[in-house]
């Protein structure tokens, strides 16, 4: 006969497991708008042109990126079928390097330092999400929306799609599309093309090279495996 104590013990364990259930308290679209407002408030703090150079702003954005994106999920999906071939050590390296690369993409997109370089009157006044449609499937959600923003003095409406995964608390983004161009899909095609001809270690080396290389004017064939093309 099972003692009452053992049943209590299992019952407590059972309850504890419920406490790790992801927080579904916030609707994904509200979460996204909140995050966008948070980013804009960082950029609004000072004049954008001077804030571009500010390490504090960049650091704040890097922290936000770490908080808002599920980089492990992104790496997994970007690797696609090749994820199954990676060893645990390779997975760790891939997640670490891809996170760094994507964080740089995110921060550079937001600060628009290339726009500054060109001397354009780059500014984002506001981003408001509208026409939002949400699909949910368990701990996953997909949000189709339109963002209205002001870029380089012109009002623009951009079609966006976010893929989110429930986290504790709230949500984390694991993919997004801008005007039908998906981040993870774009990397997945690059990874597949590289991995069809090379090993995962080669991909890790390429990622390392890309993350360490801060020179945006580097010629592509110095970094791209052109010589590997059949």
């Amino acid at each position, binding site marked *: *006969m099972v003692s009452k104590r053992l049943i209590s013990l299992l019952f407590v364990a059972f309850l504890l497991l419920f406490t*790790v259930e992801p927080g579904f308290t916030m609707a994904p679209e509200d979460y996204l708008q909140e995050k966008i407002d948070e980013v804009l408030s960082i950029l609004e703090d000072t004049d954008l042109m001077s804030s571009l150079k500010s390490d504090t702003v960049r650091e704040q954005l890097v922290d936000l990126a770490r908080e808002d994106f599920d980089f492990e999920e992104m790496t997994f999906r970007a690797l696609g079928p090749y994820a199954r071939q990676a060893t645990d050590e390779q997975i760790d390296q891939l997640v670490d390097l891809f996170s760094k690369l994507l964080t740089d993409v995110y921060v550079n997109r937001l600060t628009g330092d290339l726009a500054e370089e060109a001397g354009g009157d780059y500014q984002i006044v506001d981003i408001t999400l509208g026409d939002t449609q949400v699909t949910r499937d*368990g701990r996953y959600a997909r949000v189709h929306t339109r963002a209205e923003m002001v870029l380089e003095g012109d009002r623009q409406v951009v079609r966006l799609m976010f*893929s989110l995964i429930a986290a*504790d608390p709230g949500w984390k983004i694991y993919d997004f599309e801008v*005007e039908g*161009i998906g981040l993870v899909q774009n990397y997945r095609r690059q990874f597949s093309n590289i991995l069809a001809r090379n090993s995962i270690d080669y991909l890790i080396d390429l990622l390392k090279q890309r993350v360490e290389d801060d020179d945006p004017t580097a010629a592509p064939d110095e970094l791209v495996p052109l010589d590997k093309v059949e």
Partner: protein
Amino acid sequence: MIQPQLPMNWYLWIKLSEFSSTAVPKGLKKTFKKEQQAIQQSAKSGRRSSGYFVVCGLCFLIFLLLAELPVAARDWHERDYRDPFETEFDEPSEQPEPISDPLERLNRLTFAFNDRFYLYLLDPAVSGYEKITPHPVRRSIGNFFSNLIEPVNFVNALFQLEGSAAHNAFGRFLINTTFGLGGLFDVAGEHLEQKPHDFNQTMACWGVGDGFYIVWPFLGPSSLRGTGGMVADGFLDPMNYQEIEVATGGRTLNLLNSSGPYLREYKQLEQFALDPYIAVKDFYESMQPCH
């Protein structure tokens, strides 16, 4: 951190055992041990105690619940990498199929040539142009050239049986050419949004396939169908009916005026892509026309 790759109920069992050996009061620990011994004895004798079934039942229940929860342990070797919204609802993929690329070797060479042209010639020229040309002037020049392609939008919207888009293009051209001083000001823009339509799009909407991927010198990525569309639209481009000097001057001005945003995107992409050729190809495929 590498997480253990264990079946969930084993993992849970180990955690419970750890829990029982550290945090559980002596009495409970004893009870837990007794249950384990009883299970082992009954396993030896071939009989199962009722406790065995209750413990298994609870473990199984917890296992089922855990299957629905995010788990810290990595499961990359078993998980489906496809997006849940494509697999579970059986929806057709929203992602475009890659265009076949039998000329990849040649295309990559052209891509490398274009890359140097964009970065070492076009980019400095565009930067210089943008420095000396105020934004309102650039915007008006952009409006002018954008107005010139409204006939292309109009005809192709008709070919695609999109009455509203054809009406838009016609209205925009009429209003901007007259009240907008030859198209320099987009006065129609507030009410009539520009909706680009070209012959590549028309052919795509009528079911013509891409053919294969082509990278043209200077012009960049295209496809066999895209190239055909470009040639067909050329018949409606007023620049093609000008004196060669005027046409060349006009095209150069349009190139300098409109390339800035694309070059900035391109440089960002180059900075972060592992294989810029594939990244640009994917962009081209994603912008495939027929919605």
